[in-house]
Every structure is written in C-alpha cells, then in structure tokens.
C-alpha cells in the first residue's frame, strides 16, 4: 500500500475534522483545561501528546500480534507510561522552565483518554504506518484545540501571547482590564464548548 494512499490520508485527516478527539470523540478534555492558561505550555503539551500518541501507536501496532489478549490493556499502559516518563525527563533536561509549568500534567498524559482510546480502537488492529498517521492526526487535533484555547485565554486573560505583551500600555491606561476569569480553568471548559459549537455548526457533517 502506498505511503500516502487515499486510505492513509484519510486516516491522518479524519481526526483533524470529523473524528476529532476532543470535538468529535470527546476524549482528553481534562488536560485541555489545565495547561491552557498560557500559550507556551499549551503548545508544548500538544506536541508532547502528539509525539507520545504517534509512537505509542507504532509500538503497539508492531507488537500487536504478540500481545496476550488477557493483559493487553496492561501492556498498552506500560508502553504509554514508559514513553511519558521518557518525554517528561527529556523536557526536564532541555526546556526546564516549561517543564516546571507543566509539572504534574505531563505525568497525567498517561491517563489521557485519547491515548488509550486510539491504542484500543486503532493500533491493535492496524499496521504500523497507518497507526503512526492515526497517532499524529489525533495528537495534532488535540494540539489544535489546546493552541486555540491557550491563545484566547492568554490574550484575554493576560494581554500577551507567548509571553510577549500584545495589548499596548495605552489601552490599560484608557481603562482596559485583563479578564481575570480567563486565567481560571472553568473558562477553558466554556471555550471548548464554544469551539465544539462552531465546529458542529460549520464543519461537521453527520455521516
């Protein structure tokens, strides 16, 4: 089968739109709330989940025929946990200040439903390369939402993006105040709801 055959392309693009992990499958909401108060941790978290989902998918797919049926969830969990630990150690070594901000949330990727969901639903039944594409697609879909929510929350809640102040001091002096609620997790939930609403209204065609 060609590397980017129609089927494989669909495997990659489905989770970005129709079969989106957060908007369509409603998986992985929890960490979408916790790390999105600023844009930078949101981007790093999105990348981490993409990398981990893709490689976990590949590894499970490669050994899928050898996994005993009775312990398959355990094996999936071990693979995911090992990958998450490795990624969190790499973050601590190379981007320490971001890893301090993400702290416990990187560890919580292990419990992120997206991973277990894709491993069970896709990687156990498909070949490595399509599994890789599926992992990347789902990870990027998840990252997309994190970036959108993170950008809105940081912009409206702190007046900055990626740490750079965007709203000029003149606006603050004229009376503009940062929206404090945006820095609270509850607002992230509301924002995700709004994104789901927009997505369903304009992009989602019921099959």
């Amino acid at each position, binding site marked *: 089968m060609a590397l980017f055959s129609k089927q494989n392309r669909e495997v990659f693009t489905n989770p970005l739109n129709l079969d989106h992990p957060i908007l369509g499958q409603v998986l992985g909401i929890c960490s979408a709330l916790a790390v999105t*108060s600023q844009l930078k941790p949101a981007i790093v978290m999105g990348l981490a989940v993409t990398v981990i989902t893709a490689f976990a998918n590949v590894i499970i797919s490669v050994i899928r*025929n*050898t*996994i*005993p*049926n*009775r*312990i398959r969830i*355990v*094996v999936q969990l*071990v693979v995911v946990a*090992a990958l998450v*630990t*490795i990624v969190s*150690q*790499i973050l*601590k*070594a*190379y981007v*320490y*200040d971001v890893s*301090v901000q993400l*702290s*416990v949330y990187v560890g919580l990727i292990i419990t992120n439903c997206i991973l277990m969901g894709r491993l069970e639903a896709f990687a156990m039944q498909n070949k490595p390369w399509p599994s890789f594409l599926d992992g990347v697609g789902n990870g990027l879909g998840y990252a997309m939402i994190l970036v959108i929510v993170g950008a809105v929350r940081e912009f409206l809640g702190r007046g900055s993006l990626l740490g750079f102040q965007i709203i000029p001091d003149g606006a603050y002096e004229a009376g503009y105040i940062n929206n*404090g609620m945006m*820095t*609270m*997790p509850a607002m992230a939930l509301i924002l995700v709801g709004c994104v789901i609403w927009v997505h369903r209204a304009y992009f989602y065609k019921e099959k």
Partner: protein
Amino acid sequence: MKLNTNSNSYIIIYSAILVIIVAFLLAFIFKALKPMQDANVALDIKKQILYSLNIRGLDGSEAEAKYAEVVKEEKDVDGQKIYLCDIDGEEICVFSLKGMGLWGGISGYLAIHDQDGPTVYGAYFNHESETAGLGAEIKDSQAWQEKFIGKKVFKGGEYGSIALSVVKNVDDAATQVDCVTGATLTSNGVNDMIHAGLSSLMKEIQQGVKECGTKGCGHECAKGRCHDAAKECDHDGAKGCKHEAGMGCKEGAAKECGHEGTKGCKHEAGMGCKQGAAKECDHEGAKGCCADKTANE
C-alpha cells in the same frame, strides 16, 4: 511454530520480558539526562536567589555571571543555606526558606540587609502544587513579593520574637505584609516559613545583645546587634567593633578591639572580667574574654 498467545506461561514470560526491557530503557534515560537536569535545577536556584535580590529578567549565562558577581559566600547553618552577598558594597544576607503550603511544599529566599536594624531587601517565594490564581500568587505575583521590601524584621528593640509576618489584618505596616486574598492557608504557610527561616538570625542577635560586654562584636549578617552607636568596624578581618561606653557595652570597656582576628575586646578589670584578670584577650578564636583565662586561677 504458532505461539499460543493465551497460554499462561507465554503471558508470564511476555510480561517479564516487557518489564525488564522497559526498566533498562528508563534507567538508561535517567542516567543519561541527569547531568543536564541537575545543571538546570542549580541554575534555577541561582535565578531564584537573584530574584530575591530584586535582580530579575536574567537567564542562562547572564544569570550565572551575575550570581558569581553578587553572591560571595554560601553557608550551611543546621541544614539551612544562607548566602552572603555584596551589592555595590552593601552586605546582604539571603536566607533560604522551606515550609508547607496548602497542597504541598513551599520554599523561598529572603534577602536581609541592615538599615537601622535587619530589614528586608527583597523576597522570592516558590511552591510545588498550590492553586493557580490563589496560593500560586506567592510565586507569580511580583507585586506581592515586592511588598516585603523595606519591612523590618524586629519591632523596636524587641529581639524576643520575629515581628516580620504575613497577616490578614495589618496592624503594624512596618513589619507586616497583607495575606494573598483567597489564599489564607498558603499565606499562613509563608508566615511560618519566614519565622522558622529567620530563627537563626534571631538567636544570633539575641546572643549578641546579651553578651555585648564580654564577647565583643562579631558581625555576621545582622549588623544591628550590639552596635547602635558604633556602626563602623575598623578592623581588617577582625570582627570587633568600636564601642561607645553605655551603648550596650559595659561602662569603661575599652573602645577598641585590639585583636587581629580574635573575637575578644579589651576590658578594664572589674568590667565583667575577674579582678586581676588579664586585660587582654589572648585567645585565638575564643569567644570569651578574660573569663576563660582566669577560670582556672
């Protein structure tokens, strides 16, 4: 040979091999990345100490250079780290603090200098798992940390307890800082942490005040010990100070410390030293004057 992937022995062997491979892989990664992680943690501590000295915004090698320039000595007093710093000739002491917040540990660095008694030069606090927007404000709000600047550690001449505190209702603006709104428990944790962290300073000051007459003055971080009047030390390396009679030192006590490096001061007989005791302290490093020398006579 078709493996029966559901046989018991297969499952056991499979799990064992999986666990061993994963264990080796993780151990290898940990070992390989440890030096970089330790370097990151060390740099982060240096940056925090610089923050407490109101030097913010530096990173990487700039922070290292500034740290080397400003921090002169690192002491360990009963497990607490104290950093002696020098900024433009002024001596500043940074105390490391450790305590408990609401959900986890909190820590911090408090910089003290002498400005008519021990005064806060700057402060920085950190936390492990406090709530964002509430307890986490002790770290995130630079404005709150800056509230500590200029607060006195002790009230008036009372050195019995540390007056610097974090309270809900501020009575004494010279020594108290307002709690973080909505983060009472974390703020209480900061309060307790400060009291515990400055206890070594308090002990030193109390000792100095009590034994001004005999021990001479040794200036560690708290310069405001015995010397209100005599603020100069005119000894190179020696720790003594000039005493004006009646300023906490006994009447008639010699006004100069005549010892290079040793801690004693000259006393006129009868001024706290036994009669006939030697007028000079000739003990290297000994803390007492004459009293020790004549103890056996």
